């Protein structure tokens, strides 16, 4: 069904602010800057030609040591037309992105998860707290530079030592 999907229409509407990612083969995919993300999402949800009313998933990705380091991947679905669309949003370090909670309220927990795992700050989020890890936890567990075993502490004696200076600022809980 995805071959019928008029992805060019999005580019027509947004000109150079949105570009199509040709490397993706399984569904239509566009790349957008964080500044235009909210506008793009509300356009896709409300426009009668698209009706992307269902937000499937938000996924954070860490490409360390590549730049730009972080990326948010949104998977949208249009229940009336049966189309899927992927939106990629590259982020700098430290990562900041606008919240899309006002557009889809399901984004609330997805964004909290991305914050918890990658430390991506969602500006304007109503309740940005850790969701899986406990409040006092330091560090962002899904980042590529976070060891699989975690850092050494009282309960985890065989894990690697925590680096002292370089990333101490990144791992601080808000």
């Amino acid at each position, binding site marked *: *069904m995805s071959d019928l999907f008029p992805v060019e229409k999005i580019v027509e509407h947004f000109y150079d602010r949105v570009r199509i990612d040709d*490397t*993706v*083969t*399984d*569904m239509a995919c566009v790349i957008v800057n964080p500044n235009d993300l909210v506008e793009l999402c509300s356009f896709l949800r409300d426009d009668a030609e698209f009706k992307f*009313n*269902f*937000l*499937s*998933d938000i*996924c954070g*990705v*860490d490409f360390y040591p590549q730049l730009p380091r972080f990326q948010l*991947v949104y*998977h949208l679905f249009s*229940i009336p037309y*049966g189309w*899927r669309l*992927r939106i990629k949003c590259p982020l700098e370090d430290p990562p900041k992105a606008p919240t899309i909670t006002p557009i*889809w*309220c*399901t984004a*609330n*927990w*997805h964004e909290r998860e991305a914050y918890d*795992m990658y430390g991506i700050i969602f500006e304007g989020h109503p309740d940005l707290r*850790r*969701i*899986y*890890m*406990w409040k006092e936890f330091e560090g962002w*567990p*899904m980042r590529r530079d976070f060891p*699989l075993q975690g850092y050494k502490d009282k309960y985890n004696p065989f894990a690697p030592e925590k680096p002292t200076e370089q990333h101490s600022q990144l791992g601080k809980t808000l």
Partner: protein
Amino acid sequence: MTDVNVIHETTNEHGMSREVLMNLGPQHPSTHGVLRLLLTMDGEIVENIQPHIGLLHRGTEKLCENFTYTQIFPLTDRLDYLCPPSNNLAYALAVEALLDIQAPERAQYIRVLMAELSRISGHLLITGALPMDVGAMTALLYTMREREMVMDLMEMISGVRMHTSFCRVGGVREDLPEGCAERILEFCDIFEHRISDYEQLVENNRVFLSRVENIGTISPEGAIALGLSGPNLRASGVDWDIRRDAPYEIYDRLDFKVIVRTDGDCYDRWKCRVDEMRESLKIIRQCIQQMQPGPFLVDDPKIGFPVDKDLLAHSMETHIHHFILAAYGFKVPKGEVYKAIEAPKGELGFYIIADGTEKPFRLKVRAPSFVNLQALTQHTGNMKYLADIIAMLGSLDPVMAEVDK
């Protein structure tokens, strides 16, 4: 029933009011696992719900980044532990899309057959557990009895009751054992009547109905905005089922009805699942009927483990392939894919970014229970009292292992 943690008094314009902060769970039977709810109560009326999840967080996604593609199957089992074959299927489909291969036809039938069996086992739990949550203990004992039959079938097929790990990339681990088809058909015959038994036992019970009817009503628009999927969404009147609308495997050859209900209350979410079990039986019967003998694993020694175990002892080449597969796994070409299936709880999606090595660069699980549970925080519909929260939670049917990943 619950621990009263904090009692604090606040003043408002009407004078003094008493708000009680109550802690429900994490070790409470009606939270279906380790879910902790922090409730702000005004007497018996709930004003605010704050779920605290993550008590069962195992870091599945982080582990997946360090495992080979075959090693990830057991991890997917442990997401929604009531229906592991569905999880295996979703993950296998995603990897197969990256490799651009397709499982042989017989393997697809076996996968669908097992996924539907596991759908019955998952739905049986809520069919009994929701009445138990609201005080009718008996139904659970009967549904558990029938669930045992499904478990026995799983054991017959895969040797394991719960964490089957039966799928492989490019097929399934083994063929169906001899006599299995007959046993499954026998189960279908018995089970069909049992579904009516539950309905008679519970559905006409006035106490049960008064606890679940018109409670926690979710509108179609509200359900879509909340990202609900599966029976929870269809109970609200949205006619969308991935099995029918974007068929994967051999679902396009099967004839089944998508159950849609209109009210969107706790009762409809429960009833939707009961009716879905009948459709699953129909699918299982058709699978058995249409299934033809043939290979059950893709014929590619670089991806599929050797089927003929005798060859392992005699053929050096088979031996090497087996060693490489077991020790290093297979390489998956660079790319990314999102594959979603209709799991018993809703849309289960796997988003995989592959970087050309034997391990995924990033694997994201779109867990339906995680998204569905969020509906609890929204004060939708008629959900005022503490007892309604329990009914709502039971009808959303979250599996905490999947919520916490």
